[in-house]
């Protein structure tokens, strides 16, 4: 052995300093350190690459924007037709002066990307079912389930179809091409260090923008606003409850409804009368099928308020238009505020990063606002496949081949997932044995989905026209291409015209069609035709005798005399309070409207409190409980931040609902839809012996007084707990956030001191609320105010990330400055960007 070693030592040249071993060790250690610092850690792949993330020349430090950064500069944009100038005010709101609509779109694309790139791309990834690509499959495969849901619903195919339609319109094509070029002009010059923070956190890079991404964003909004239904839950309820109970829990219309078009309007006979299939009773209404699959649903409270007031009711004699769309209060905000001036128009308002144009706003002649129609335009069909391959389905008496599609879903850190989806004549098969949605229960059924937003359409063309509308006819014309998601478009102009139209293409359904999963074995259950556009509900203020305002708050648009079936899933309370306040108000000023948009009065509590107080048995209460009851009794019914009343009411009411409904509802594990609060309240007000009050699990027959008292006694300990934890006041209990899209609390604004709630005009909930409050008085010089819970910059390292949030929470507004051509030297202009070709 020794000899062998000597031999090797002899052959190998002897190193001079004997440092080869330490060299190799330190080389190994240092290289190892660099390798470790140059990769992502953690299962969720949500951690950044430590080395580059910490490097002050590459990582997050580069996103720490110096306070007082100069945003001025000159930009060369190849393909720009003329010159453009952008004047930023002190809030970083850009006032764009462009030579044409296409140039305006070009510059808007550039600005959106400059300030909101990560958000706009992330939203289109969500729309296209590509979250797993950047976030991994997620806990319990939640991102993968989400991606499959979006793709199976047909988001991508719908966006492609809409893109084709958009590009057939030469104006839309030109505008989208310009917008896309603007976004790409920003992306193409980005260095690693310039990437928005979130790319560094998640370790990926932006890809080139495309017109398809614009279409995807538009479809994302369609999903958010017209992607909700309770078809599975209602199917289960119909099979689980008796006919009488079902009618009690899910009535077609609420007594206290105050529809968008006031009651008493005469409607013409329907242009089309859909006919229920002959088999409707046996195969549909009385078919006791149940569904275990579970849908992905958009936020239930995606709603909004808007109203417009005739000059007859305002102090200035000019109309006032108000709008506050209720969406998730995300950071970066869904909105980006701007002014766009071209030779043809001068529009101001908020835009969607991800799409061109001002979406909600006003120009020199008119103002417009939007709320969601909440109409049900998504239905399911029960599909019978021949075998497990799902290549053939039974339709109209024969086996018909399905169109098969394979979706390729890339997953960060895991193997690519291939999802096979069958498409039938009735729509894509959203649920099948390989996909039960968010349910863990295996099912051998298949359901195809028919969704209005999957039809081709060009909604952007409506907004393109809105930029330059001059009067009611222009507005009506602009709405002709708007199909989905159906919206209530409120309108007012400087001539004094005020109107509201519920616009979109809605299927004409026979009564009860699509309320439950429908039989999918023949074509008799398809949507037969659309409601003609001129039959959509609308209202124009024109006579001295009318009420002097139009309004909407997602309630049912019409009363039961409207000749088409609408379904029954509409909230009613915000509409009630809006109409009550406006009816009682005259000589209205913008300041009145600020007060009204931020009004915290809870009309639901107003209607429910007498019932609760009348039925509680005070003799059962101890001192502490009595004290809470007195607080509730003396509460002014405003959900103001410091009030305890709203907390007591929220707990008491939800416990009462449990007391009344849980005994019946917990007899099944099937998903059921909780009845509307208004349904239960109206039932109890009408009938103190409502059959559900009795607990079916006890021999005795409970009274309303018993369940009300019991519910109150049950919540007293919860209230005491909250009092100890300083959560007994409303704002602290509700805990409103402006929440970062990645749901990181550190990048969010938490614990905002704001009141309101789901039934208030100020509909601020925990992660959701008035996403843009706007008031426009159409005097000869427009007077407008606005605020949104965010800031113009999407960069968490910018002082402009959360500029408006505190004002928003406090109910303060900013005057919206429509910069005139001769105001370029105004002291409100902080920075100027020049664009050249």
């Amino acid at each position, binding site marked *: 052995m020794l000899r062998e070693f000597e031999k090797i030592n002899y052959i190998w040249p002897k190193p001079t300093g004997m440092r080869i071993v*330490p060299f190799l060790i*330190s080389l190994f250690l240092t290289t190892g350190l660099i390798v470790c610092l140059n990769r992502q850690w953690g299962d969720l792949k949500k951690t950044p690459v430590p080395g580059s993330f910490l490097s002050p020349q590459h990582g997050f430090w580069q996103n720490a924007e110096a*306070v007082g950064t100069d945003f001025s500069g000159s930009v060369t944009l190849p393909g720009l037709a003329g010159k453009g100038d952008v004047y930023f005010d002190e809030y970083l709101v850009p006032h764009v002066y462009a030579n044409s609509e296409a140039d305006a779109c070009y510059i808007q694309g550039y600005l959106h990307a400059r300030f909101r790139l990560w958000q706009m791309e992330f939203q289109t990834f969500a729309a296209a079912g590509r979250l797993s690509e950047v976030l991994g499959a997620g806990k319990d495969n939640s991102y993968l389930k989400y991606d499959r849901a979006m793709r199976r619903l047909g988001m991508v195919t719908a966006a492609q179809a809409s893109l084709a339609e958009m590009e057939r319109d030469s104006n839309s094509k030109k505008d989208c091409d310009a917008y896309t070029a603007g976004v790409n002009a920003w992306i193409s010059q980005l260095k690693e260090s310039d990437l928005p923070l979130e790319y560094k956190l998640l370790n990926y890079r932006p890809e080139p923008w495309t017109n398809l991404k614009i279409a995807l964003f538009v479809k994302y909004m369609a999903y958010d606003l017209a992607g909700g239904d309770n078809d599975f839950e209602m199917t289960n309820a119909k099979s689980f409850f008796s006919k009488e109970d079902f009618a009690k829990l899910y009535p077609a219309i609420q007594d206290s409804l105050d529809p968008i078009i006031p009651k008493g309007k005469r409607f013409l006979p329907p242009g089309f009368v859909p006919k229920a299939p002959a088999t409707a009773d046996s195969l549909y209404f009385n078919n006791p099928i149940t569904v275990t699959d579970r849908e992905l649903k958009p936020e239930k409270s995606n709603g909004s308020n808007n109203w417009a007031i005739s000059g007859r009711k305002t102090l200035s004699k000019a109309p006032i238009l108000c709008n506050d769309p209720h969406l998730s209060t995300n950071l970066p905000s869904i909105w980006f505020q701007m002014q766009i001036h071209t030779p043809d128009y001068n529009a101001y308002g908020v835009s969607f990063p991800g799409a061109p144009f001002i979406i909600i706003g006003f120009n020199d002649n008119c103002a417009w606002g939007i709320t969601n129609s909440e109409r049900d335009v998504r239905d399911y069909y029960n599909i019978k496949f021949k075998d497990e391959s799902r290549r053939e389905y039974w339709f109209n008496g024969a086996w018909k081949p399905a169109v098969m599609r394979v979706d390729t879903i890339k997953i960060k850190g895991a193997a690519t997932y291939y999802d096979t989806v069958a498409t039938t004549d009735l729509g894509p098969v959203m649920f099948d044995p390989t996909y039960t949605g968010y349910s863990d229960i295996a099912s051998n059924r298949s359901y195809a989905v028919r969704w209005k937003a999957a039809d081709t359409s060009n909604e952007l063309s409506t907004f393109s026209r809105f930029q330059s509308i001059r009067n009611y006819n222009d507005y009506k014309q602009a709405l002709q291409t708007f199909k989905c998601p159906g919206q209530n478009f409120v309108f007012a102009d400087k001539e004094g015209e005020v109107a509201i139209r519920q616009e979109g293409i809605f299927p004409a359904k026979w009564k009860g069609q699509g309320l439950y999963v429908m039989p999918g074995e023949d074509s008799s259950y398809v949507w037969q035709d659309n409601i003609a556009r001129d039959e959509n509900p609308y209202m124009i203020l024109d006579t001295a005798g009318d009420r002097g305002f139009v309004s909407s708050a997602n309630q049912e648009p019409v009363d039961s005399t409207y000749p088409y079936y609408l379904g029954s899933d509409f909230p009613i309370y915000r509409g009630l309070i809006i109409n009550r306040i406006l009816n009682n108000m005259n000589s209205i000023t913008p300041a009145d409207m600020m007060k009204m948009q931020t009004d915290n009065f809870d009309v639901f509590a107003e209607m429910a409190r007498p019932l609760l107080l009348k039925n509680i048995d005070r003799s059962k209460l101890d001192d502490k409980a009595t004290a809470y009851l007195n607080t509730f009794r003396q509460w002014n019914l405003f959900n103001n931040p410091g009030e305890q009343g709203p907390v007591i009411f929220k707990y008491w009411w939800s416990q009462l609902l449990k007391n009344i409904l849980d005994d019946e509802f917990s007899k099944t594990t099937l998903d059921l839809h909780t009845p509307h609060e208004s349904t239960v309240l109206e039932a109890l007000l009408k009938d103190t012996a409502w059959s559900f009050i009795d607990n079916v699990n006890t021999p005795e027959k409970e009274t309303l007084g018993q369940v009300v008292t019991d519910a109150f006694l049950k919540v007293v300990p919860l209230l005491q707990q909250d009092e100890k934890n300083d959560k007994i006041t409303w704002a602290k209990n509700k805990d409103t956030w402006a929440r970062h899209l990645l749901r990181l609390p550190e990048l969010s604004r938490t614990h905002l001191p704001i009141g309101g709630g789901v039934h208030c005009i100020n509909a601020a909930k925990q992660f959701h609320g008035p996403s843009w409050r706007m008031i426009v008085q159409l005097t000869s010089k427009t007077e407008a105010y606005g605020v949104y819970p965010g800031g113009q910059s999407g960069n968490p390292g910018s002082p402009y990330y959360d500029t408006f949030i505190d004002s928003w929470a406090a109910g303060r507004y900013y005057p919206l400055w429509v910069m005139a051509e001769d105001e370029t030297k105004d002291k409100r202009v902080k920075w100027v960007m020049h664009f050249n070709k």
Partner: protein
Amino acid sequence: MIKFLVSILLIALLSFVCGLFLPWWTIALVAFLVSALIPLKPLQSFLAGFLAIFLLWGGLALGIDQLNNSILSAKIAAILPLGGSVIALILVTAFVGALVGGGAAITGSFLKAAR
């Protein structure tokens, strides 16, 4: 001593220039090459590389943070998790870079000595 100071200056300066155009780990290449070309005792080399990057990254981070009023660093220090301490975040930044710089420098010095 002069070689030591020159090494620190060279590593910091060249790392800064490379950082403008090249990936973050070029600090290691710079520290490696400088200490291979300017012979120092291994531990001195380590110290030179360590101090050079500590000062460069720490100084840059501190400067950026001053101009930003700690808007971002406070958030990142809460995510990382450093309890929201901006000073800790700057020190961690400087230390991580310094460790790479020191390791690369001592490796370079061994190479020199090994020749």
